[in-house]
């Protein structure tokens, strides 16, 4: 891999990567079972060059912000590279947000440029908020012939001839602004420097190296911190190959493992669970004798790999299972949300190492990762090289708030010194997650819950109650508030997290079917991963500040003390 210590910016490192491995394949893009694009590093450079020149001609200046709203595909990475090459700041936005949310974050980030996929651009232009678009230059990919682009350019035609010049950036300059939450009113734009990414990349590849010939399957959205690092920056600075799938249908994902002989993949727990479900269903179909044999071999593999993975041996013991994953899989990397230990153990017992990690956007990508020495299903691993982790104010069980200090940690929240000051205290990032170091003294971190009022879905999405409350605006009740259930009733476990809508009815108002239907309808207007799971009626007025803001902490404590979880009605 490149020696990242020599580089000051992602643009400079990626430029050298494209020159260092010209003939290696860097990117494959498949749509279902059809391969659409296959690029060498040299091809990638040739595709990016005219875009970089066009950006130069469009007066793209050092430090200009450019947002990308796209599903995983080659043009995402080519655009991101070109933005870095031209000295820009990348703002990767979640393509699953609504058009109004996209417009809100575009305005907040002050992005001058926007690169967007056609179907998403169409939705944005149809939004009633479209007039609030702040980006000056919009590039739309894959627009059909004759489509009205409302003043945007076609990405494919936004090209100029000539040799562009790399715009140098310093390590401390901003590389990306990544939103960890805040579409409901107070966006949290994590400002991450080139130093953050280069340090994080060096730390991750020290434990899980890539090399030319490695094929990384990119399933998580590239705007997600994990995929941006291990599905773009990491593989590229090592000469490896990224495989993009345009469809995430489980059948095509399974097919891609075999077709492209995948080496690594990062997953969120929901996808891992889906793979487990598929395998278990197949195992259940086996004839009793074959099943009996499989169970014996799995048991034997478990015993032989107790201390460390022995992939070669596992492949010989369970060839059919490994063949179904392409035969070259080194590890499944899982993170983004709580992962059930039994699911990880299931794969490990089949000889497929699962490395569970813990991270947050504010810390660039990962804070801890399991090094598989040995495999542990009950922890989120050890701090990565360069990361210091502390447990603050531990209780009698040793559990306290996890704090992180490293060069990978964000410098601040964009335009929000107040939230920054609450989150980074004396150089330590306060994660809001509760954990402790395992008693065995080997430095493994275990997580036990959250101190903050938020949930993380199995799909790896952080959902903050404040961000979804607007969906219930105008609800015919006196007042309402949304909480994470585990914030109301703290518990020392993770998993099964949900949001609860707390209602205060008007005097003499009854909770009737009409109100219930109204709540359900509003809830269904939210994206499926943002929905509230239950509701409860609270009998007192909400405590408020002098400026009439709800005192959420006080209200949560009152509800937690005055009611039990059993009072939450299912939505």
């Amino acid at each position, binding site marked *: 891999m490149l020696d990242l210590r020599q580089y000051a910016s992602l643009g400079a490192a990626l430029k050298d990567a494209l020159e260092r491995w010209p003939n290696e394949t860097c990117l494959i893009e498949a749509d279902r079972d059809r391969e659409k694009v296959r690029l060498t590093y040299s091809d990638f450079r040739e595709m990016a060059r005219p875009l970089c020149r066009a950006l130069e001609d469009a007066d793209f200046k050092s430090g200009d912000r450019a947002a990308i709203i796209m*599903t995983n595909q080659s043009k995402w990475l080519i655009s991101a590279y070109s933005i870095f090459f031209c000295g820009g700041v990348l703002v990767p936005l979640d393509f699953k947000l609504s058009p109004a949310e996209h417009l809100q974050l575009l305005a907040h980030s002050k992005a001058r440029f926007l690169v967007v996929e056609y179907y998403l651009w169409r939705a944005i232009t149809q939004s009633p908020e479209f007039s609030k678009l702040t980006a000056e230059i919009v590039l739309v990919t894959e627009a059909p012939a004759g489509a009205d682009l409302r003043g945007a350019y076609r990405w494919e035609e936004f090209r100029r001839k000539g040799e562009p010049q790399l715009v140098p950036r310093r390590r401390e300059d901003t590389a990306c602004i990544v939103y960890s939450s805040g579409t409901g009113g107070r966006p949290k734009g994590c400002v991450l420097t080139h130093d953050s990414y280069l340090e994080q990349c060096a730390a991750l590849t020290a434990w899980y190296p890539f090399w030319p010939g490695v094929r990384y399957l990119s399933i998580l959205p590239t705007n997600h911190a994990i995929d941006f690092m291990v599905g773009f920056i990491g593989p590229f600075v090592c000469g490896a190959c990224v495989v993009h799938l345009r*469809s*995430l*249908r489980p059948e095509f994902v399974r097919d891609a493992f075999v077709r492209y002989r995948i080496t690594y993949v990062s997953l969120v727990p*929901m*996808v891992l669970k889906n793979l487990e479900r598929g395998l278990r269903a197949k195992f259940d179909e086996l004839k009793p004798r074959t099943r009996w044999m499989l169970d014996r071999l799995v048991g034997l593999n478990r015993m032989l790999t107790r201390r460390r993975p022995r992939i070669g041996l596992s492949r010989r013991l369970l060839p059919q299972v490994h063949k179904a994953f392409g035969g070259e899989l080194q590890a499944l990397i899982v993170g983004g949300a709580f992962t059930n230990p039994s699911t990880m153990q299931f794969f490990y017992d089949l000889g497929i190492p699962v490395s569970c990690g813990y991270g947050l956007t504010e810390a660039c990508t990962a804070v801890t990762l399991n090094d598989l020495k040995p495999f542990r299903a009950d922890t989120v691993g050890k701090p990565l090289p360069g990361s210091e982790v502390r447990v603050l104010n531990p209780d009698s069980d040793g559990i306290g708030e996890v704090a992180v200090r490293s060069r990978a940690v964000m410098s601040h929240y964009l335009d929000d010194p107040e939230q920054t000051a609450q989150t980074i205290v004396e150089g330590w990032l306060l994660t809001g997650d509760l954990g402790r170091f395992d008693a065995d003294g080997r430095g493994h971190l275990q997580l036990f819950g959250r101190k903050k009022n938020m949930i993380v879905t199995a*799909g790896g999405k952080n959902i903050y109650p404040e961000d979804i409350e607007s969906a219930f605006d105008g609800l015919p009740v006196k007042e309402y508030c949304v909480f994470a259930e585990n914030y109301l009733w703290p518990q020392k476990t993770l998993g099964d997290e949900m949001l609860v809508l707390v209602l205060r009815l008007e005097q003499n108002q009854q909770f009737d079917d009409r109100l219930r239907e109204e709540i359900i309808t509003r809830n269904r207007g939210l994206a*499926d991963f943002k929905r509230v799971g239950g509701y409860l009626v609270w009998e007192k007025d909400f405590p408020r500040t002098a400026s009439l803001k709800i005192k959420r902490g006080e209200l949560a404590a009152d509800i937690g003390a005055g009611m039990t979880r059993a009072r939450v009605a299912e939505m």
Partner: protein
Amino acid sequence: MSAPTIDHTLDEILKLAASHFKVPREKLTPDDDFFKTLGIDSLQALDLLTRIEHHFRIELPDYELQGVSDFRTLANRIQARL
């Protein structure tokens, strides 16, 4: 051959969902939130979409399912492609 009616498409989708997730057809109604009624996640919903594609012999990009959570809206999306 003329395209089937939206009611027919909706009925076919409900039958496919019932059979795919092994629930009685009569338990499903057009306005059900299928994530909740079937207890499925978004990947399982994509699996259902594949089955629907095979049945109607059409191809739908994954994004057609974005923001869709009830059978009626799904049927409308399918109908637009028939």
